[in-house]
């Protein structure tokens, strides 16, 4: 009686296990299929852009997809930018324009990110360590004041800045853009840095103060080096946002300070579309950030998740 029961339960356990195994396998297949599908969605536009930059008109019209199979890669797009192997030595006005825009983007993005991290780190440290009272505003209100700037849509500032910058002779200048970009990323930087400083124990500050360091000595010599990961995260995130910014750049720059996104956007209108050169330009515009993103992904994730999730 007892043995019979054991045998039947064993048998059912066996069939249950194999059913579970099938279900588990199907689940695995489903998960990996979904992963592959979304990886395709994420990467195909990038792949399309890079391959299109090596096509000629005929390949584009045929809708060729795979290089060497559907079509023979060609340097036409890169040649029109003056960046192909055979034109790199020659003088090229397009390349000069491209390099100029590229450098503008570099200066603007790096300048704004550096300034934002500097201002933001100071403010975040103050908010994290000291009690302030300004008129009716205490720390929480001050923190909200900075954060609330995030809500301000660019379009509200765009027209006043157009008029103000005209009066200040800052239109079409990299400095003007840097100041404006600093403003747009400052709330995010303060948020990330505040989160970072909150994780560093206050006892360290107290110990430093006992050792005779003032508030600024404590900040620069003890706390700031420990806050480096947060600073890198804030810097990278600012860099991405500033590098990709289009709205202000399109309104406030014309010839000197134009950044890459403005150049990319202004290509489309003229004399039909040269698919290959547009693709080459887009590839060159996105490549730096894709590289930065892949290498420093850890910091981007750290920056994005600051403050929102506490483990």
């Amino acid at each position, binding site marked *: 009686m007892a043995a019979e029961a054991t045998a039947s339960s064993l048998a059912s356990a066996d069939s249950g296990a194999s059913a579970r195994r099938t279900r588990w396998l199907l689940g695995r297949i489903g998960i990996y299929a979904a992963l592959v599908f979304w990886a395709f969605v994420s990467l*195909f536009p990038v792949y399309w852009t890079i391959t299109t930059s090596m096509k000629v008109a005929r390949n584009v019209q045929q809708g060729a997809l795979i290089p060497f199979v559907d079509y023979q890669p060609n340097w036409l797009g890169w040649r029109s930018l003056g960046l192909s192997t055979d034109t790199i030595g020659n003088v090229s006005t397009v390349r000069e324009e491209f390099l100029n825009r590229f450098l503008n983007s570099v200066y603007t993005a790096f300048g704004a990110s550096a300034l934002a991290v500097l201002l933001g780190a100071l403010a975040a*440290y103050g908010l994290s360590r000291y009690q302030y009272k300004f008129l009716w505003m205490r720390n929480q209100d001050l923190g909200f004041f*900075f954060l609330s700037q995030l*809500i301000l849509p660019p379009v509200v500032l765009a027209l006043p800045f157009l008029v103000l910058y005209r009066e200040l002779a800052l239109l079409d200048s990299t400095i003007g853009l840097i100041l404006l970009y600093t403003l747009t990323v400052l709330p995010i930087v303060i948020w990330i840095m505040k989160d970072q400083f909150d994780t560093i124990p206050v006892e360290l500050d107290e110990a430093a103060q006992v050792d005779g360091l003032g508030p600024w000595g404590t900040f620069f010599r003890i706390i700031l080096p420990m806050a480096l990961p947060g600073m890198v995260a804030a810097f990278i995130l600012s860099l991405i946002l500033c*590098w990709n910014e289009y709205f202000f750049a399109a309104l406030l720059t014309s010839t000197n300070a134009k950044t890459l996104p403005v150049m*990319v956007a202004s290509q489309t209108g003229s004399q039909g579309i040269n698919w290959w050169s547009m693709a080459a330009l887009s590839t060159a515009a996105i490549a730096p*950030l894709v590289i930065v993103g892949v290498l420093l992904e850890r910091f981007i994730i750290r920056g994005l998740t600051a403050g*929102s*999730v506490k483990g």
Partner: protein
Amino acid sequence: MAIAELPAYGAISRRRKEWGRALIAAATVLFLATALAQVLNSARIVDLGFRDWRPTLFAYLAWAVALGFGQVMIRGQAGLRALFILPAALFTVAMAIFPTLFGLSIAFTDWNLSSATGQKFNGLDNLFQLFRDPFYWNAMRNMVIYVLFVLVEYAIAFGLALLLNAEIRARKFWRVVFLIPLMLSPVAVSWMVGKSMLEYRFGPVARFARWIGINNPSFFTDPWAARLWIEAMDAWVSIPFVMILLLAGLQAMPKEVMEAATVDGATPWQRFWQITFPLMLPVSLTAIVLRIIFKLKLADIIITVTSGGPGGATDSVSSFIYREYRDRSNVGYGTMLAMFYLVVIVIFITILLNVLSRHMRRMT
């Protein structure tokens, strides 16, 4: 740093306090005098030969520095602490609060940069014109639709976060791949996807559409199709952001609860709706609110792909105002549109935060 010279304890001498107050007062007078001189100059009452307003800018900077010094002189250690927050605060006031107030003064004027007549105060005319402007309200309606689509983005992002949180190989690889769209500039994406892949004759998406039997694929001629494709591009760029927030939330979830539920025989479906989803609610709401805030700024993709077309179907408020300036140089009216938009979204976000804040993680 001059920390060592400052008395760490004890009172600050009265003389030093007075000097500090005098310094701040002097800088304030200098700043106000410069500004006044420039106003007189630009109103052509007195010709002082200023070519631009930079002197006022420099006077503001000098005032800011003097204010910092004065704080330290008057309040010692407390002043040194105030110096941490002062630069960012003064910067924000100068770059956000002042231009917004300045914008208000433009909003109530009739000012077209391309017309010969300059700025003219016209009271509430712009506001009345705004209420009668069908294109503006059309753009507002589109914004409501775009904001509602955030929920779809959230659902997809949640799915992806669950995928990445499952027991998979090469998790880091998939995470990097899924994150790549976030790095790309919306303008480049507009070109790559909006202009090239969605080309109706030989773009790969059009080809695919024909292959599955849609004979005449048109992506930007039908209003709803155009809106959906704009939304799809914006979603493509921003889903990784929501996904990363949700993934971090999932990873922070206590494992024991899940294990207990599995032991109790809950199906995956039940586990998700009864445990994961409720536990993730605070993170979810934070992610959604942040995403809505960014969504309300949507402009780049629309400006570069459709310019608001067809017939304003894809217009966002930002892209509409952008064209109001770019094509018609209508600064006065455009600013009023922007200011009204700001008021609307501040009210909207405030209500949203008040309703949701009980369930959200702290934001400041």
